[in-house]
């Protein structure tokens, strides 16, 4: 019996589809992958997503497709675990689109179109917020009237949980005794930190939406909320602001050039001042938030970089360790410069003498989802 697992990772601007073969021995085999760009201007995302799915599914043997796993960005207050999508779950995901309109709706489109095409396959939801479900209340609540938390469900949800959790499990597998205090920096186009202490996630930088926290490629990160009310007052419309905060801010907005981190480094080396400023602000905020996480942990045993920037920018890793000297993270320069991850997709670049470990881990949300899908195979009997 061949069991294939389709992973649907629907983002705000792209649809990443992977197929893995699953084995009951807790192994997976990567079969195929494609990323489709979604047209920002399209007014029919539903059709666009259906078309991409159909073209992708033509390439695989549908008879063997047993499970379809969706990355769902927002699971709200009640979804803390992977779950089989039935009518109710589908409706809840749709309702939660009010918190994450760019992401959840794409997922719903994919779910509904696959339900028609492959009604015999079981569809599963994996929530990006689930890993943060048990944050301590002190980290979870915003300093707003308490009724906003109780009634409007305004709280820190946290995102990128699938990869944060995956990295955390990688660390546990790598070390016999897992380090007690870990900060994971997921640094890609979106960026977030998580703080893990004694097997429990205790803090994170993203909040009610994925806009909070670090400076990102095109997202602003944390702001003085007064800025928003001022801009509203100055006749910026809601949708304008939404667009600016999500797509025109961050590195791109600061530099006025690009949100691409590697490009900005290149430009900085060529003497471009605005590129340099953007990077400086990025690093400044990253340092600040790493230490915020260290405060939540009351110490640090292990720092992890993951995601496109975290894995590929030796420059950033070096600069962070240099500028956080008092933490005394010592890394092997040569290993940082010519980074080679081991077969498990992980590397410790810290020197043996360094008290704090510095790991680089290959982010792989889709693989993480495939691994967590295996237990659901039991339903094919």
């Amino acid at each position: 019996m061949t069991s294939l697992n389709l992973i649907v990772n629907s983002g705000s601007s792209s649809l990443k589809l992977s197929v893995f073969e699953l084995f009951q021995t807790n192994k997976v085999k990567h079969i195929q992958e494609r990323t489709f760009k979604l047209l920002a201007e399209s007014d029919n995302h539903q059709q666009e997503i259906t078309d991409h799915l159909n073209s992708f599914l033509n390439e695989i043997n549908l008879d063997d497709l047993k499970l379809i796993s969706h990355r769902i960005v927002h699971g709200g207050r009640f979804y803390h675990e992977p779950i089989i999508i039935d009518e109710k779950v589908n409706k809840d995901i749709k309702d939660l689109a009010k918190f994450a309109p760019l992401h959840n709706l794409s997922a719903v489109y994919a779910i509904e179109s696959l339900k028609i095409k492959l009604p015999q396959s079981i569809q599963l939801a994996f929530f990006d917020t689930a890993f943060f479900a048990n944050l301590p209340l002190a980290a979870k609540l915003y300093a707003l009237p308490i009724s906003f938390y109780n009634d409007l469900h305004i709280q820190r949800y946290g995102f990128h949980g699938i990869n944060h959790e995956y990295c955390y499990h990688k660390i546990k597998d790598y070390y016999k005794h897992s380090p007690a205090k870990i900060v994971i920096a997921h640094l890609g186009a979106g960026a977030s930190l998580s703080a893990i202490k004694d097997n429990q996630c205790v803090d994170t930088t993203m909040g009610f939406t994925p806009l909070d926290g670090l400076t990102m490629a095109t997202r602003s990160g944390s702001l003085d909320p007064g800025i928003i009310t001022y801009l509203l007052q100055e006749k910026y419309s809601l949708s304008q602001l939404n667009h600016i905060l999500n797509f025109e801010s961050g590195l791109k907005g600061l530099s006025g050039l690009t949100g691409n981190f590697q490009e900005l480094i290149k430009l900085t080396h060529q003497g471009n001042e605005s590129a340099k400023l953007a990077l400086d602000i990025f690093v400044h905020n990253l340092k600040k938030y790493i230490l915020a996480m260290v405060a939540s942990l009351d110490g640090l045993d292990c720092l992890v970089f993951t995601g496109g920037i975290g894995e590929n920018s030796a420059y950033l890793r070096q600069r962070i360790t240099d500028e956080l000297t008092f933490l005394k993270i010592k890394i092997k320069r040569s290993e940082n410069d010519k980074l080679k991850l081991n077969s498990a997709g992980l590397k410790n670049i810290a020197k043996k003498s360094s008290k704090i470990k510095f790991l680089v881990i290959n982010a792989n949300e889709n693989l993480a989802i495939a691994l967590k899908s295996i237990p659901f195979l039991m339903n094919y009997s």
Partner: protein
Amino acid sequence: MKKNENDDSKTSKTKAKPSKVKATVASPKTKSVSSIQATNKNPNYVVTTELDERTGLSIESLKAGFVDHLFYDLGTYIGRANLNDYYIGLSLTIRDRLLRRFLSTQKTYLNKDSRILGYLSAEYLPGTHLGQNVINLDLIQEMQEVSKISNYSLDQLIEHEPEPGLGNGGLGRLASCYIESLATLNYPAIGYGIRYEYGIFRQLIQKGCQKEIADRWLHSGNPWEIRRPKQSSIIKFGGYTQSYTDKNGKYRVEWVPSYQVTAMPYDTPIPGYKTNMCNVLRLWKAEAIQDFSFEVFNSGNYFEAVHDKILSETISKILYPNDAIFEGKQLRLAQQYFFVSASIQNMIDLHFRRGDKIHNFHKKFAIQLNDTHPSIAVVELMRLLIDVHDLSYEEAWAITTKSVNYTNHTLMTEALEKWPISLFKRTLPRHLELIYEINQRHLDKVRSSNKYDDDFISRVSLIDETGERYVKMANLAVIGAQYINGVAKLHSQLLKSHLFNDFYILNPEKFTNVTNGITPRRWLKNANPNLANLLDEYINTNWLNDLNQIKTIEKLAYNKDFQKNWLKVKKQNKLNLANFIEASQGLTINPDSLFDCQVKRIHEYKRQHLNVLHIISLYNKIKNNLNINITPRTFIFSGKAAPAYYMAKQIIQLINAVANTINNDPNVNEILKVVFLPNFSVKLGQKIYPAADLSEQISLAGTEASGTGNMKFSLNGALTIGTLDGANIEIMDYVGKDNLYIFGMTETMVQESKNNGYNPHSFYESNPVLRQAIDSISNGVFSDGDKHIFNDIVNNLLYSDPFMVLEDFDSYINTQEKISTDYLNSQEWVAKSIINVANMGYFSSDRSINEYCKNIWQLKPIQVDLEDAIQARYHLIHHD
């Protein structure tokens, strides 16, 4: 002598067709040698045989049919087609062969004057068709060869078929066994039911709990059914009635419905085993009478235009997923009336097509109500006879009560349907009037004897007047039926002494028993080919057509060679299941361990939790003493719980929790394993029964009407641990009490214990093994320390225990201990296993059907002659 298919061209490759036919019928599908040679220019394409790709049984014909279907029906070809295409193509190839039998059978119905059975059942569980049809047509080897050209094995194609889940459990499966037996025994019969678009839900297990999702079994196409628009009928609902005087001055009533629905028949051929007879399973789909109103559509209101269509089609949308609890939903009444009315109209239509008069209807048709669901048939037949066919009330009642018979399937009063008068009136106003009339005459008759008090009269009334007024459907079935039967001796006895005692006092001659049976063609030949092949080696006769022949192996019970072969078969079957469990669940089980199986609906009365308590007691035993010697066992569970049945779902969660703890405990998991296989089905049953060593039939005595799982296990060589309940008692009578394990209270003891004030807590207090077992649940041993998850189960057992699990526990555990010891004595165990199988002849559904035909339906077998394939088609061309 029967003219059998084997006579015509199965082995001989050439067969001359009557030249007369060839000359008159231009059949595009039958290529003669000359025509192929004339049109085919390729000199390598030498045709030496006349290929009949639609009815021929040679490998060449079958292959040609397969390829043709892929090409012309599915628009694909070998190499391009996918698994589903191949499955459908091969099924259509088989269906072609069935249709010849099917049409010959239908023709025989019309030509012969014999009585026909209309079997009314709201549920069927036919299992997958392809494998069974290949067996019944005796084409196994041929089809194995044919399927090779697809690069899939016949088994893979059979496995791909989605199962029609048109029933909840035993009752639906029984109906399917009976339709197959009727065909095998050459009795003319039509199985009527509902073509549910969504069958029984698909059960998923998520974190140990049941989750239900819709089963879209029709999604990939159903190659077996044939839609018959010409035989559709109109079903009325709602509205009001008005009386009038007809032109003869007679008082008549007209029912003016508020809406009408089309009942569209879909026919699935059900062939008998190695016989020409091919009966039909006719399932009704609800369709809107018109697709939508163009007038409304054109005026721009699309929604309103399709609204009626949607409303009408809801009726056959979904099967109610309850097997022992009645839910008084209007849609359910509509479903029952819908298929009953369509079926009876269809029977009357057939009756007229045979050129007969309405006055003879009861002589030519027997109507069987499979449980209470189709009871409305009594009134519907009355209505059609009086309002439509203009008979007097008296004659209509005489015809009805000579046509209709009623099988009861449960003793639980909560399962018997009763409809609130208001709902009934809203849905079927004319029927309510007739029910009042029937009731009046019925009660007048009872009163006239002056023997009965008011309580008695109110009990036998069709109307429940104790609170809100209801129509009592079981009472209607009882007074409308000629015969009423239970499904096992004990059950029929209890019907007379308890459930229908009042009616038994009134009409003792109506009550009888027919113990259930199972068809050996599916439950042995299909499910367990290894055992069937072994039996073939030792029994020369056609034992699959006469299961009593199987008795001959009893004398080999201690024969060394036979035992060796027997063990080899069982071992192979266990390995197959172990491999399946490993592949699907990722769980390795020990094929040498005792496979202890309980597969059936999850219900408190079936007492899966008693089984779990035994497993926990073994677990505790090992934990108490790690060096203890215990016979290794693998416990296999499977079964669905009704979605709204909380306790049953808790039991599933408990089984999975115990499984999780035991399977992951290195001290225990070498000795014990627990498996819950999700989504039990006929298909899955076919994998489990042949591999079982022990069959758990542990319902509280007096609760299981018959059970048929017990028979399926025994027929496949498992020994039974069971209570004296349902058909267990008769299995004991046949296999001998030394060859199965009986424990627990008898039905009489149960009544006695209840009368004395059953106190479950006292058993908990006095039995330390039981106490430890229950305590380990409530202490969170199986729930990561969570002490509350299973509170409801624990409290239910300790303080209420309606199915007396705790009282039977001690006896159960002791019997299980004896089984553990006995299993180690392989020679004795195998002998018992052989003796069980040898004595299963009585439990063939052929025996049940013969009893029904002789004692209830007065049905005679008829001979179906196969028309020449070409002639058969000639009829199609010129007469349809």
